[in-house]
Protein backbone atom coordinates (compact mmCIF):
# COMPACT_ATOMS: atom_id res chain seq x y z
CA UNK A 1 0.00 0.00 0.00
CA UNK A 2 1.57 3.32 -0.91
CA UNK A 3 1.34 4.74 2.58
CA UNK A 4 0.45 8.34 2.03
CA UNK A 5 0.44 10.85 4.78
CA UNK A 6 -3.05 12.34 4.37
CA UNK A 7 -2.81 16.05 4.89
CA UNK A 8 -5.63 18.51 5.47
CA UNK A 9 -6.79 18.56 1.87
CA UNK A 10 -7.74 16.00 -0.76
CA UNK A 11 -5.49 12.98 -1.31
CA UNK A 12 -3.53 13.05 -4.59
CA UNK A 13 -5.64 12.52 -7.72
CA UNK A 14 -4.52 9.83 -10.15
CA UNK A 15 -7.39 10.04 -12.59
CA UNK A 16 -7.99 12.05 -15.75
CA UNK A 17 -11.38 13.46 -14.77
CA UNK A 18 -10.38 14.10 -11.16
CA UNK A 19 -8.49 17.31 -11.82
CA UNK A 20 -11.70 19.15 -12.64
CA UNK A 21 -13.37 17.88 -9.47
CA UNK A 22 -10.45 19.01 -7.32
CA UNK A 23 -10.53 22.42 -9.03
CA UNK A 24 -14.25 22.74 -8.25
CA UNK A 25 -13.60 21.71 -4.64
CA UNK A 26 -10.92 24.34 -4.12
CA UNK A 27 -12.92 27.14 -5.80
CA UNK A 28 -15.89 26.18 -3.64
CA UNK A 29 -13.94 26.13 -0.43
CA UNK A 30 -12.27 29.49 -1.18
CA UNK A 31 -15.75 30.93 -1.81
CA UNK A 32 -17.03 29.40 1.44
CA UNK A 33 -14.02 30.72 3.39
CA UNK A 34 -14.47 34.18 1.87
CA UNK A 35 -18.14 34.27 2.83
CA UNK A 36 -17.57 32.89 6.31
CA UNK A 37 -14.72 35.24 7.14
CA UNK A 38 -16.55 38.24 5.65
CA UNK A 39 -19.68 37.40 7.65
CA UNK A 40 -17.62 36.56 10.74
CA UNK A 41 -15.77 39.86 10.81
CA UNK A 42 -18.97 41.88 10.45
CA UNK A 43 -20.67 39.61 13.00
CA UNK A 44 -17.97 40.10 15.65
CA UNK A 45 -17.81 43.82 14.86
CA UNK A 46 -21.55 44.16 15.53
CA UNK A 47 -21.31 42.16 18.77
CA UNK A 48 -18.57 44.41 20.10
CA UNK A 49 -19.76 47.78 18.83
CA UNK A 50 -23.43 47.31 19.76
CA UNK A 51 -22.97 45.54 23.11
CA UNK A 52 -25.15 46.89 25.94
CA UNK A 53 -23.34 49.58 27.93
CA UNK A 54 -24.57 52.55 29.93
CA UNK A 55 -25.67 55.40 27.70
CA UNK A 56 -25.86 53.19 24.61
CA UNK A 57 -29.34 52.96 23.06
CA UNK A 58 -30.56 50.68 20.28
CA UNK A 59 -31.59 52.16 16.89
CA UNK A 60 -35.29 51.72 16.18
CA UNK A 61 -35.25 52.62 12.49
CA UNK A 62 -33.75 49.74 10.51
CA UNK A 63 -30.50 50.58 8.73
CA UNK A 64 -30.77 50.73 4.93
CA UNK A 65 -29.66 47.39 3.50
CA UNK A 66 -27.88 48.48 0.33
CA UNK A 67 -24.72 46.60 1.22
CA UNK A 68 -26.64 43.45 2.04
CA UNK A 69 -28.47 43.53 -1.30
CA UNK A 70 -25.11 43.58 -3.08
CA UNK A 71 -23.68 40.82 -0.90
CA UNK A 72 -26.69 38.60 -1.46
CA UNK A 73 -26.57 39.45 -5.16
CA UNK A 74 -22.90 38.51 -5.17
CA UNK A 75 -23.66 35.19 -3.46
CA UNK A 76 -26.42 34.43 -5.99
CA UNK A 77 -24.19 35.31 -8.95
CA UNK A 78 -21.32 33.19 -7.65
CA UNK A 79 -23.64 30.26 -7.02
CA UNK A 80 -24.98 30.50 -10.56
CA UNK A 81 -21.42 30.62 -11.87
CA UNK A 82 -20.45 27.64 -9.74
CA UNK A 83 -23.55 25.76 -10.80
CA UNK A 84 -23.54 26.33 -14.55
CA UNK A 85 -19.96 27.45 -15.03
CA UNK A 86 -18.17 24.73 -13.17
CA UNK A 87 -20.18 21.93 -11.61
CA UNK A 88 -22.66 21.09 -14.39
CA UNK A 89 -20.09 21.10 -17.24
CA UNK A 90 -17.77 18.86 -15.20
CA UNK A 91 -20.64 16.51 -14.34
CA UNK A 92 -22.01 16.38 -17.89
CA UNK A 93 -18.56 15.97 -19.42
CA UNK A 94 -17.81 13.14 -17.01
CA UNK A 95 -21.14 11.41 -17.41
CA UNK A 96 -21.71 11.87 -21.11
CA UNK A 97 -18.51 11.19 -23.01
CA UNK A 98 -18.26 7.45 -22.68
CA UNK A 99 -14.77 6.22 -23.58
CA UNK A 100 -14.45 4.48 -26.93
CA UNK A 101 -15.67 0.94 -26.27
CA UNK A 102 -12.96 -0.67 -28.38
CA UNK A 103 -10.04 0.98 -26.64
CA UNK A 104 -11.40 0.70 -23.11
CA UNK A 105 -10.95 -2.26 -20.80
CA UNK A 106 -14.35 -3.59 -19.73
CA UNK A 107 -14.72 -5.01 -16.25
CA UNK A 108 -17.84 -6.42 -14.65
CA UNK A 109 -18.20 -5.92 -10.90
CA UNK A 110 -20.70 -7.72 -8.71
CA UNK A 111 -20.50 -6.57 -5.12
CA UNK A 112 -21.70 -8.86 -2.38
CA UNK A 113 -21.89 -8.75 1.39
CA UNK A 114 -18.46 -7.94 2.17
CA UNK A 115 -16.46 -8.75 -1.01
CA UNK A 116 -15.92 -7.32 -4.49
CA UNK A 117 -16.02 -9.78 -7.42
CA UNK A 118 -14.38 -8.49 -10.61
CA UNK A 119 -14.78 -10.27 -13.95
CA UNK A 120 -12.39 -9.58 -16.81
CA UNK A 121 -13.52 -10.58 -20.33
CA UNK A 122 -10.26 -12.33 -21.18
CA UNK A 123 -8.85 -12.51 -24.71
CA UNK A 124 -12.18 -12.94 -26.51
CA UNK A 125 -13.31 -9.67 -25.06
CA UNK A 126 -16.64 -11.15 -24.16
CA UNK A 127 -18.07 -11.89 -20.73
CA UNK A 128 -19.47 -15.33 -20.10
CA UNK A 129 -23.21 -15.34 -19.38
CA UNK A 130 -23.98 -15.53 -15.68
CA UNK A 131 -27.08 -16.52 -13.80
CA UNK A 132 -27.86 -15.95 -10.12
CA UNK A 133 -28.94 -19.59 -9.77
CA UNK A 134 -25.39 -20.76 -10.59
CA UNK A 135 -23.80 -18.72 -7.83
CA UNK A 136 -21.87 -20.91 -5.41
CA UNK A 137 -18.79 -20.79 -3.23
CA UNK A 138 -16.20 -21.14 -5.96
CA UNK A 139 -18.32 -19.46 -8.61
CA UNK A 140 -19.12 -16.10 -6.90
CA UNK A 141 -20.39 -14.55 -10.12
CA UNK A 142 -22.40 -17.56 -11.28
CA UNK A 143 -20.64 -17.65 -14.66
CA UNK A 144 -22.22 -20.23 -16.93
CA UNK A 145 -19.56 -22.99 -17.42
CA UNK A 146 -20.92 -24.09 -20.81
CA UNK A 147 -20.73 -20.58 -22.30
CA UNK A 148 -17.59 -20.57 -24.52
CA UNK A 149 -16.95 -16.85 -24.20
CA UNK A 150 -16.79 -17.31 -20.45
CA UNK A 151 -14.01 -19.88 -20.69
CA UNK A 152 -11.18 -17.37 -20.64
CA UNK A 153 -12.82 -14.91 -18.25
CA UNK A 154 -10.70 -13.97 -15.29
CA UNK A 155 -12.50 -13.59 -11.94
CA UNK A 156 -10.74 -11.91 -9.02
CA UNK A 157 -12.03 -11.21 -5.53
CA UNK A 158 -11.11 -7.99 -3.70
CA UNK A 159 -8.38 -7.26 -6.25
CA UNK A 160 -8.81 -4.77 -9.07
CA UNK A 161 -6.01 -4.66 -11.63
CA UNK A 162 -6.24 -1.84 -14.15
CA UNK A 163 -3.75 -0.66 -16.76
CA UNK A 164 -2.52 2.90 -16.49
CA UNK A 165 -3.34 5.47 -19.19
CA UNK A 166 -6.14 3.37 -20.61
CA UNK A 167 -9.83 4.04 -20.06
CA UNK A 168 -11.61 1.45 -17.92
CA UNK A 169 -15.37 0.91 -17.91
CA UNK A 170 -16.71 -0.93 -14.86
CA UNK A 171 -20.32 -2.10 -14.97
CA UNK A 172 -21.15 -2.13 -11.26
CA UNK A 173 -23.89 -4.27 -9.82
CA UNK A 174 -24.65 -6.08 -6.58
CA UNK A 175 -25.95 -9.47 -5.53
CA UNK A 176 -27.69 -8.62 -2.31
CA UNK A 177 -27.74 -5.11 -0.86
CA UNK A 178 -26.61 -1.65 -1.93
CA UNK A 179 -22.86 -1.14 -1.70
CA UNK A 180 -20.84 1.72 -3.18
CA UNK A 181 -17.83 1.36 -5.46
CA UNK A 182 -15.59 4.08 -4.09
CA UNK A 183 -11.92 4.73 -4.95
CA UNK A 184 -10.99 8.09 -3.39
CA UNK A 185 -7.74 8.56 -5.28
CA UNK A 186 -9.47 7.93 -8.62
CA UNK A 187 -12.33 10.29 -7.62
CA UNK A 188 -14.79 7.50 -8.42
CA UNK A 189 -17.97 6.67 -6.48
CA UNK A 190 -20.96 4.71 -7.73
CA UNK A 191 -23.63 2.97 -5.68
CA UNK A 192 -24.00 -0.65 -6.72
CA UNK A 193 -27.75 -1.22 -6.86
CA UNK A 194 -28.93 -4.85 -6.97
CA UNK A 195 -30.99 -5.47 -10.09
CA UNK A 196 -29.16 -2.79 -12.07
CA UNK A 197 -25.85 -2.62 -13.96
CA UNK A 198 -24.57 0.94 -13.79
CA UNK A 199 -21.49 1.86 -15.89
CA UNK A 200 -18.77 4.02 -14.42
CA UNK A 201 -15.58 4.91 -16.25
CA UNK A 202 -12.26 6.47 -15.44
CA UNK A 203 -8.67 6.53 -16.64
CA UNK A 204 -5.74 6.21 -14.29
CA UNK A 205 -2.78 8.47 -14.95
CA UNK A 206 -0.29 7.00 -12.46
CA UNK A 207 0.66 3.46 -11.49
CA UNK A 208 0.50 2.48 -7.84
CA UNK A 209 -1.21 0.45 -5.18
CA UNK A 210 -4.32 2.09 -3.81
CA UNK A 211 -7.50 0.86 -2.13
CA UNK A 212 -11.22 0.70 -2.66
CA UNK A 213 -13.60 1.28 0.26
CA UNK A 214 -17.31 0.49 0.36
CA UNK A 215 -19.13 3.80 0.93
CA UNK A 216 -22.68 2.58 1.59
CA UNK A 217 -23.72 0.80 4.79
CA UNK A 218 -24.15 -2.82 3.74
CA UNK A 219 -24.26 -4.79 6.98
CA UNK A 220 -21.93 -5.82 9.76
CA UNK A 221 -18.96 -6.34 7.44
CA UNK A 222 -19.29 -2.94 5.77
CA UNK A 223 -16.10 -1.66 7.40
CA UNK A 224 -13.91 -4.48 6.07
CA UNK A 225 -15.28 -4.47 2.52
CA UNK A 226 -11.95 -3.40 1.12
CA UNK A 227 -10.23 -4.21 -2.15
CA UNK A 228 -6.75 -3.53 -3.45
CA UNK A 229 -6.61 -1.35 -6.52
CA UNK A 230 -3.42 -2.09 -8.46
CA UNK A 231 -2.78 0.32 -11.32
CA UNK A 232 -0.17 -1.48 -13.44
CA UNK A 233 1.98 -0.44 -16.33
CA UNK A 234 0.80 -2.17 -19.54
CA UNK A 235 3.52 -4.81 -19.25
CA UNK A 236 2.71 -5.64 -15.63
CA UNK A 237 -0.98 -5.80 -16.50
CA UNK A 238 -0.34 -8.16 -19.42
CA UNK A 239 1.91 -10.38 -17.28
CA UNK A 240 -0.68 -10.47 -14.52
CA UNK A 241 -3.50 -11.22 -16.99
CA UNK A 242 -1.51 -14.01 -18.56
CA UNK A 243 -0.46 -15.59 -15.28
CA UNK A 244 -3.90 -15.55 -13.81
CA UNK A 245 -5.86 -16.51 -16.91
CA UNK A 246 -7.83 -19.70 -16.25
CA UNK A 247 -6.04 -22.91 -17.45
CA UNK A 248 -6.80 -23.30 -21.16
CA UNK A 249 -9.08 -26.34 -21.69
CA UNK A 250 -8.82 -27.29 -25.38
CA UNK A 251 -7.04 -24.71 -27.52
CA UNK A 252 -3.69 -23.57 -26.11
CA UNK A 253 -4.21 -19.98 -25.03
CA UNK A 254 -1.34 -17.91 -26.34
CA UNK A 255 -0.01 -15.86 -23.49
CA UNK A 256 0.12 -12.74 -25.64
CA UNK A 257 -1.37 -9.79 -23.85
CA UNK A 258 -4.66 -9.08 -25.43
CA UNK A 259 -4.52 -6.23 -27.90
CA UNK A 260 -7.65 -4.76 -29.30
Amino acid sequence: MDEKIYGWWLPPDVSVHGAKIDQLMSVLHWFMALLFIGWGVFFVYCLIRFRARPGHVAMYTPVKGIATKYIEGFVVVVEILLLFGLSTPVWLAYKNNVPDAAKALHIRLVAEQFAWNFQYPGKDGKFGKSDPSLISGDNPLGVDPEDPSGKDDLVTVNQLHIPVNRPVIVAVSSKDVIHSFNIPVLRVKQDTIPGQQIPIWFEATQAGHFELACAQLCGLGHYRMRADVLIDTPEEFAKWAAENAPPPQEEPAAAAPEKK
Partner: protein
Amino acid sequence: MDAAGHEDVSRHMGKYYVVFVALLCLTAVTVGVSYLHLTRPLAITVALIIAAVKAGMVAAVFMHLISEKKVIYAVLILTALFFALLLALPNLTTFEHHSGMPGT
Protein backbone atom coordinates in the same frame (compact mmCIF):
# COMPACT_ATOMS: atom_id res chain seq x y z
CA MET B 1 -71.97 25.35 3.07
CA ASP B 2 -72.22 27.73 5.91
CA ALA B 3 -75.22 27.72 8.19
CA ALA B 4 -77.63 27.90 5.26
CA GLY B 5 -81.26 27.69 6.21
CA HIS B 6 -83.65 24.83 5.55
CA GLU B 7 -84.79 25.92 2.07
CA ASP B 8 -81.25 26.46 0.75
CA VAL B 9 -80.37 22.77 1.30
CA SER B 10 -83.52 21.43 -0.31
CA ARG B 11 -82.77 23.45 -3.45
CA HIS B 12 -79.58 21.35 -3.83
CA MET B 13 -81.27 17.98 -3.36
CA GLY B 14 -81.96 17.68 -7.03
CA LYS B 15 -78.31 18.22 -7.85
CA TYR B 16 -77.23 15.37 -5.54
CA TYR B 17 -79.45 12.87 -7.35
CA VAL B 18 -78.23 14.07 -10.74
CA VAL B 19 -74.63 13.62 -9.69
CA PHE B 20 -75.45 10.23 -8.21
CA VAL B 21 -76.87 8.98 -11.48
CA ALA B 22 -74.04 10.52 -13.47
CA LEU B 23 -71.48 8.73 -11.31
CA LEU B 24 -73.16 5.38 -11.85
CA CYS B 25 -73.32 5.95 -15.60
CA LEU B 26 -69.69 6.97 -15.81
CA THR B 27 -68.73 3.86 -13.87
CA ALA B 28 -70.58 1.78 -16.41
CA VAL B 29 -68.89 3.73 -19.22
CA THR B 30 -65.39 3.20 -17.87
CA VAL B 31 -66.00 -0.53 -17.45
CA GLY B 32 -67.51 -0.66 -20.90
CA VAL B 33 -64.51 1.09 -22.42
CA SER B 34 -62.20 -1.41 -20.78
CA TYR B 35 -63.87 -4.22 -22.75
CA LEU B 36 -62.80 -2.48 -25.97
CA HIS B 37 -59.17 -3.28 -25.08
CA LEU B 38 -57.81 -0.02 -26.43
CA THR B 39 -54.06 0.41 -26.80
CA ARG B 40 -52.45 0.85 -23.43
CA PRO B 41 -51.68 4.65 -23.45
CA LEU B 42 -55.14 5.42 -24.90
CA ALA B 43 -56.84 3.17 -22.35
CA ILE B 44 -54.97 4.86 -19.53
CA THR B 45 -55.87 8.38 -20.66
CA VAL B 46 -59.54 7.54 -21.18
CA ALA B 47 -59.84 5.78 -17.83
CA LEU B 48 -58.09 8.62 -16.01
CA ILE B 49 -60.24 11.28 -17.68
CA ILE B 50 -63.42 9.46 -16.67
CA ALA B 51 -62.11 8.97 -13.14
CA ALA B 52 -61.13 12.64 -12.95
CA VAL B 53 -64.62 13.72 -14.07
CA LYS B 54 -66.23 11.45 -11.48
CA ALA B 55 -63.85 12.65 -8.78
CA GLY B 56 -64.47 16.24 -9.79
CA MET B 57 -68.20 15.76 -9.41
CA VAL B 58 -67.88 14.12 -6.01
CA ALA B 59 -65.56 16.89 -4.80
CA ALA B 60 -67.51 19.80 -6.27
CA VAL B 61 -71.04 18.72 -5.33
CA PHE B 62 -70.90 16.20 -2.54
CA MET B 63 -67.96 17.91 -0.79
CA HIS B 64 -69.34 21.39 -1.64
CA LEU B 65 -65.97 22.51 -3.05
CA ILE B 66 -67.90 24.62 -5.51
CA SER B 67 -68.68 27.15 -2.81
CA GLU B 68 -65.84 26.69 -0.36
CA LYS B 69 -63.71 29.29 1.42
CA LYS B 70 -60.37 30.65 0.15
CA VAL B 71 -58.33 29.00 2.91
CA ILE B 72 -59.48 25.54 1.80
CA TYR B 73 -58.69 26.28 -1.84
CA ALA B 74 -55.20 27.44 -0.82
CA VAL B 75 -54.55 24.21 1.11
CA LEU B 76 -55.88 22.05 -1.71
CA ILE B 77 -53.89 23.78 -4.45
CA LEU B 78 -50.74 23.45 -2.35
CA THR B 79 -51.48 19.74 -1.83
CA ALA B 80 -52.26 19.21 -5.51
CA LEU B 81 -48.88 20.74 -6.44
CA PHE B 82 -46.94 18.45 -4.11
CA PHE B 83 -49.10 15.47 -5.16
CA ALA B 84 -48.08 16.10 -8.77
CA LEU B 85 -44.41 16.40 -7.76
CA LEU B 86 -44.62 13.19 -5.77
CA LEU B 87 -46.07 11.37 -8.77
CA ALA B 88 -43.76 12.87 -11.38
CA LEU B 89 -40.27 13.26 -9.93
CA PRO B 90 -39.56 9.73 -8.65
CA ASN B 91 -40.66 8.25 -11.96
CA LEU B 92 -38.81 10.82 -14.05
CA THR B 93 -35.65 10.20 -12.07
CA THR B 94 -35.85 6.42 -12.07
CA PHE B 95 -36.70 6.00 -15.73
CA GLU B 96 -34.50 8.69 -17.23
CA HIS B 97 -32.29 6.79 -19.67
CA HIS B 98 -28.84 6.53 -18.09
CA SER B 99 -26.26 8.20 -20.23
CA GLY B 100 -23.62 5.88 -21.60
CA MET B 101 -23.62 2.15 -22.14
CA PRO B 102 -26.62 0.16 -23.27
CA GLY B 103 -27.95 -2.55 -21.05
CA THR B 104 -28.21 -0.34 -18.08
